[in-house]
């Protein structure tokens, strides 16, 4: 099997400070990779580099495109990369306000990516939007409401629907459950697990919440000061951590 994503020697510096350094990993179709570390560990920088939001200083990010096979995302033209961002990739922000258009109805939010790739039939766009609202457990009657009228959990589910409607193969998530109540988090995690399984999605989840990665991620990457210091199966890294920092990280949280 070819990896969906093959990252080599990815490095980003901010002046003299290291954002992330020499990061390498592969992600296979259907895999969920968790990236954990405390704030400032470089996990968000890494995610932004991978998703093309910021340009790294060195390295390569090979993505297995549908048409042309493996391509280095960092060497794609901007239109190509933006097209990828609307079709095969998805990005779920921690704050749904960053990932939604707050002045556009729920249906319009879900339909945008469809229209961006050329859908021009209102009835079909709306039918797909309804289908996706249903999949993320938002009542169809809310389709014309603006997200501002939604609860935090609903906004986050709407953001997921909006991202997944074009059937992407890779989804980036930045603290997807951050800022949500624990019970709402659980519902979202369940939803994400189901969608990942049903759609065969690959996902990269950045979080500081070890309970979230235990339930969501197959594999784990632990970061500190911009470096990856430990990788492995999620439960193995959490239950039998090898690196001093990981041992500290795992022992400093309540039992998960």
């Amino acid at each position, binding site marked *: 099997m070819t990896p969906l994503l093959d990252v080599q020697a990815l490095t980003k510096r901010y002046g003299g400070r290291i954002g992330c350094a020499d990061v390498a990993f592969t992600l296979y179709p259907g895999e969920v990779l968790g990236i954990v570390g405390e704030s400032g560990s470089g996990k968000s920088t890494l995610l932004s580099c991978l998703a093309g939001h910021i340009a790294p200083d060195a390295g390569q990010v090979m993505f297995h495109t549908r048409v042309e096979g493996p391509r280095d995302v960092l060497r794609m033209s*901007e239109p190509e990369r933006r097209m990828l961002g609307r079709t095969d990739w998805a990005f779920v922000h921690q704050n749904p306000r960053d990932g939604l258009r707050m002045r556009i109805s729920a249906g319009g939010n879900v339909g*945008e990516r*469809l*229209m*961006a790739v050329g*859908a*021009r039939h*209102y009835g079909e766009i709306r039918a797909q939007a309804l289908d996706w609202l249903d999949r993320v457990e938002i009542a169809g009657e809310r*389709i*014309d409401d603006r997200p501002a009228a939604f609860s935090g959990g609903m906004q986050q589910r709407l953001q997921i629907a909006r991202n997944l409607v074009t059937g992407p193969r890779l989804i980036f998530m930045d603290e997807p459950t951050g800022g949500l109540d624990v019970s709402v988090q659980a519902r979202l995690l369940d939803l994400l697990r189901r969608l990942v399984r049903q759609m065969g999605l690959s996902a990269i989840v950045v979080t500081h919440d070890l309970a979230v990665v235990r339930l969501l991620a197959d594999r784990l990457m632990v970061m500190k000061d911009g470096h990856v210091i430990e990788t492995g199966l999620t439960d193995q890294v959490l239950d039998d951590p090898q690196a001093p920092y990981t041992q500290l990280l795992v022992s400093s949280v309540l039992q998960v």
Partner: protein
Amino acid sequence: MTEYNFAYLDEQTKRMIRRAILKGVAVPGYQVPFASREMPMPYGWGTGGVQVTAACLTPDDTLKVIDQGADDTTNAVSIRKFFEKTAGVAVTERTAEATIIQTRHRIPETLMRGDQILVVQVPIPEPLRFLEPSEVETRKMHSLEEYGLMHVKLYEDIARHGEIATAYAYPVKVEDRYVMDPSPIPKFDNPKLESAALQLFGAGREQRIYAVPPHTKVVSLDFDDHPFDPSKAPHPCALCGAEGSYLDEVITDDKGGRMFVCSDTDFCADRRREGEAA
């Protein structure tokens, strides 16, 4: 000092504006930035259009100025007087006689010819502004031809009103490339954007000029199952009886009396003259 330079603006400025116009003609529908000048009238009164007109005028031109179809509204009258005073050009109210027509919110009913120029006053040139407030981002969207968002706006219309309720400033795609705001003309006028005349659009406050050269393809955006419909109120003009012209609703008394009359006053007057002659 009583003498103005011809058409008020100095020659350097007019040259700069002409360069912007030429660039606009070369890239139909593309918003060309230009260094808009202070004009002796407030923004919103057509300062963009006035600068474009000033840059196009020659002493031999005949100018017509209309505001929402009428030659006799304050805005039209003052701009006409402005150019009479600063350029000394001939003015007219007849569409057929004019070589340059500056307009706000309408395109004349009478089909324009290849030897005429239409100058349109534009308040907000960016069609994506409503959806994406960042200018940096909208410019990028234009350059990468990412126009899905424009359809989101139309989607919202249908979702809320059951049809595309946008009745004016209806977005168009020019020559299969740039999405353009045709200014707040009624969508009824959109088909006339495919014209034999050169159409120039000037936004003074926003410092943008764009153009639709003669015989350029201009397509109004729509959905397959909600096609563009340029229809208007289903009445004939109460004065000239025209069936196919854009109408204004005129309140005639305070008892709810009203009538529908041609918004294009010259067109209406022409028809009435012809009617009397016949």
